[in-house]
């Protein structure tokens, strides 16, 4: 009774984890899309919190499984042969280096960090390997057992190996891409900062000269030019002249030169930067650069999903019809005395080694078996156990 209850609970928990795996993949996609499509702040917050909760649940699950396997002296088996390492990659590092610190930052300052422009290298690495969450999909392969003959252990192991190779190739490519200076988004951000610094230093100097000359017209003209520049550059969000700078002069200059309305609500705090450049306070967006990085991440994620789906829907069928089914039929023919089904040999693949083997089974083994059992009685389909609980 106790065992039944615990196996029922285990089934419910496994079902929950399987659903959560799909939810987590959806969360990664929506989380990235919410940034690119500039969704309302509250949705971004929900998605961020959902990501943190998912990482927590998977971490708890990994720790629980680890404790149980250690108790059963089977940790090595769990970790290396039963997807334990995948459970690990998809949980603890993400919680410790990505969603955990972001959650603390959010709780203390209300800012959602995305780590794209983090100056801390490890945070950027973690951001890159967030895609590795897709590895969780490998754990639900066993759900495919109702599809074709996917309950074949050999099929599941082969499919898992192929998908691991595919996913890791994409992750490593993404990782290398992020660290090639030419493609580095971080470098692009630094270049943008330098450009703005140069431009606004020059403007600042001109402004100082005009003020020194007490040339009101020149000052107005300069402010007008700066405002035109701000309008032309979509990345400039806010430009102010420092109040102390204005107070020190007799010339009247408007404090706020330019501001995009409600940009704080539309852009994540970590996707715009504030710089003090001489007499200016400048806020500028790096959302476009974040979008490039997110776009690449999403591209990789979709590539992984597409490849996984193709393997599951297409390669699985090929493997089943051309390998596992053939072995299954031959094994049954060897094992059971009365089993005489021949292997179906597809015309186009008849020269493959496995079908050569199947030809031998069809044309030599089965006829020999038939001759061997000629005149011998078949086994009865009724056993003495069928009389158990019989009441006449």
């Amino acid at each position: 009774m106790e065992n039944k209850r615990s196996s029922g609970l285990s089934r419910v928990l496994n079902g929950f984890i399987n659903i959560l795996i799909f939810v987590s993949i959806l969360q990664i996609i929506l989380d990235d899309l919410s940034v690119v499509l500039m969704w309302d702040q509250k949705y971004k917050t929900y998605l961020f919190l959902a990501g943190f909760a998912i990482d927590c649940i998977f971490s708890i699950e990994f720790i629980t499984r680890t404790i149980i396997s250690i108790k059963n002296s089977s940790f090595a088996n769990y970790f290396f042969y039963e997807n334990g390492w995948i459970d690990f990659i998809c949980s603890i590092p993400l919680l410790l280096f990505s969603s955990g610190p972001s959650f603390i930052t959010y709780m203390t300052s209300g800012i959602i960090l995305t780590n794209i422009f983090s100056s801390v290298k490890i945070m950027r690495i973690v951001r890159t390997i967030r895609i590795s969450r897709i590895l969780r999909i490998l754990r639900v392969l066993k759900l495919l057992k109702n599809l074709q003959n996917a309950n074949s252990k050999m099929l599941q192991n082969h499919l898992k190996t192929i998908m691991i190779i595919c996913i890791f190739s994409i992750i490593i490519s993404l990782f290398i891409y992020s660290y090639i200076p030419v493609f580095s988004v971080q470098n692009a951000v630094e270049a943008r900062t330098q450009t703005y610094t140069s431009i606004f230093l020059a403007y600042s100097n001109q402004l100082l000269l005009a003020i020194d000359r007490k040339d009101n017209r020149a000052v107005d003209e300069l402010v007008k030019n700066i405002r035109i520049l701000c309008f032309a550059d979509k990345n400039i969000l806010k430009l102010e002249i420092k109040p102390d700078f204005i107070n020190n002069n007799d010339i009247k200059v408007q404090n706020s030169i330019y501001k995009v309305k409600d940009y704080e609500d539309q852009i994540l705090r970590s996707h715009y930067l504030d710089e003090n450049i001489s007499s200016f306070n400048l806020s500028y967006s790096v959302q476009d650069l974040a979008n490039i990085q997110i776009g690449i991440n999403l591209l990789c994620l979709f590539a992984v999903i597409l490849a996984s789906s193709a393997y599951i829907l297409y390669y699985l069928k090929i493997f089943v019809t051309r390998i596992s089914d053939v072995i299954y039929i031959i094994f049954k023919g060897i094992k059971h005395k009365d089993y005489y089904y021949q292997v179906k040999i597809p015309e186009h693949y008849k020269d493959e080694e496995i079908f050569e083997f199947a030809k031998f089974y069809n044309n030599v083994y089965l006829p020999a078996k038939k001759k061997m059992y000629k005149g011998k009685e078949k086994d009865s389909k009724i056993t003495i156990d069928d009389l158990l609980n019989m009441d006449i």
Partner: protein
Amino acid sequence: MSDTNLQRAEKFINHLLELPNIRIESPIGAESQILLFIKNNRSKLEASFKNPEFFPSIPPDQAIAFILQSLQKRVLESCIPFFTKIIDSEIDFSILNKVHKNHNFNVEAVKQSYKKIIEDMLQDSVCRVQFKSIYYIFEKRYIDKSLALIFERKAFTYNELVRVQKCFIELQDYISYLKMLLLLTPYPHLQKAGNKTLASANGKDEIQSICKLATGSLVKEIPLIDITECKLAVDSNLPDYLLENWEASSRFLFILISRFADYEPANKKEKGAETADKSWYGVARKVAQNYGYNKGIVDELYLIANEIK
């Protein structure tokens, strides 16, 4: 008391006939399974039958006799109406007039003698077992389907059945003709040559002499049909190398009977495997010489196996 034991035997048989593996079998197939079960587990059954829930008041041998009696009753109750219906509705006996143009057959009388002889054969336990294949062949309408394809292809088997056997009749007539022959094929199992039956005969001489005897006996039993049909039906129990060249129908029926002797209604299509039919013919092609199948006919049936649906 005997009555109660017979009722118990009936309940025992009912229980076995309702087992999932047995329920899907034909009545004769189910009987064969039950007989095999009793034979293989006789000592265990005898011990069990002494228990109060079975037959405590009679010796185990008598209990088994009751069971066999009850089983035979059940099988006959299902089989006799099945074959009577086949004779009445599926076979056109008037084709005999087309096959033998100088004869005038009394179709109704032929039907009646068929019914009688079939009932006699079904009453015999050894002969009844041979009806397992025949039951399935009729149930699956296998002759109708396979012959339609053979006549469409006009290849080896068609040539054998029509030209070699010199039986120039239309497809539907040939179907009826083969069905007529098929119903009589278990007849030699009623015959004995000395102590030997067809099943226990050793060597081709003994087999041939039993069949010769059976043909003569069958002609006497149904004088209304021609000796050709009696010989073709009886010789359907003989392998290819013991048949005369013209006996194509016997060659064909010998293969069908062998095929359905191995037929398992429970067998479903397996993924990655050929169908049960195709697999059977695939193996039969390779063992044709050992089992006495005509290679050309088996090869053709192998080619059309997947189309016989």
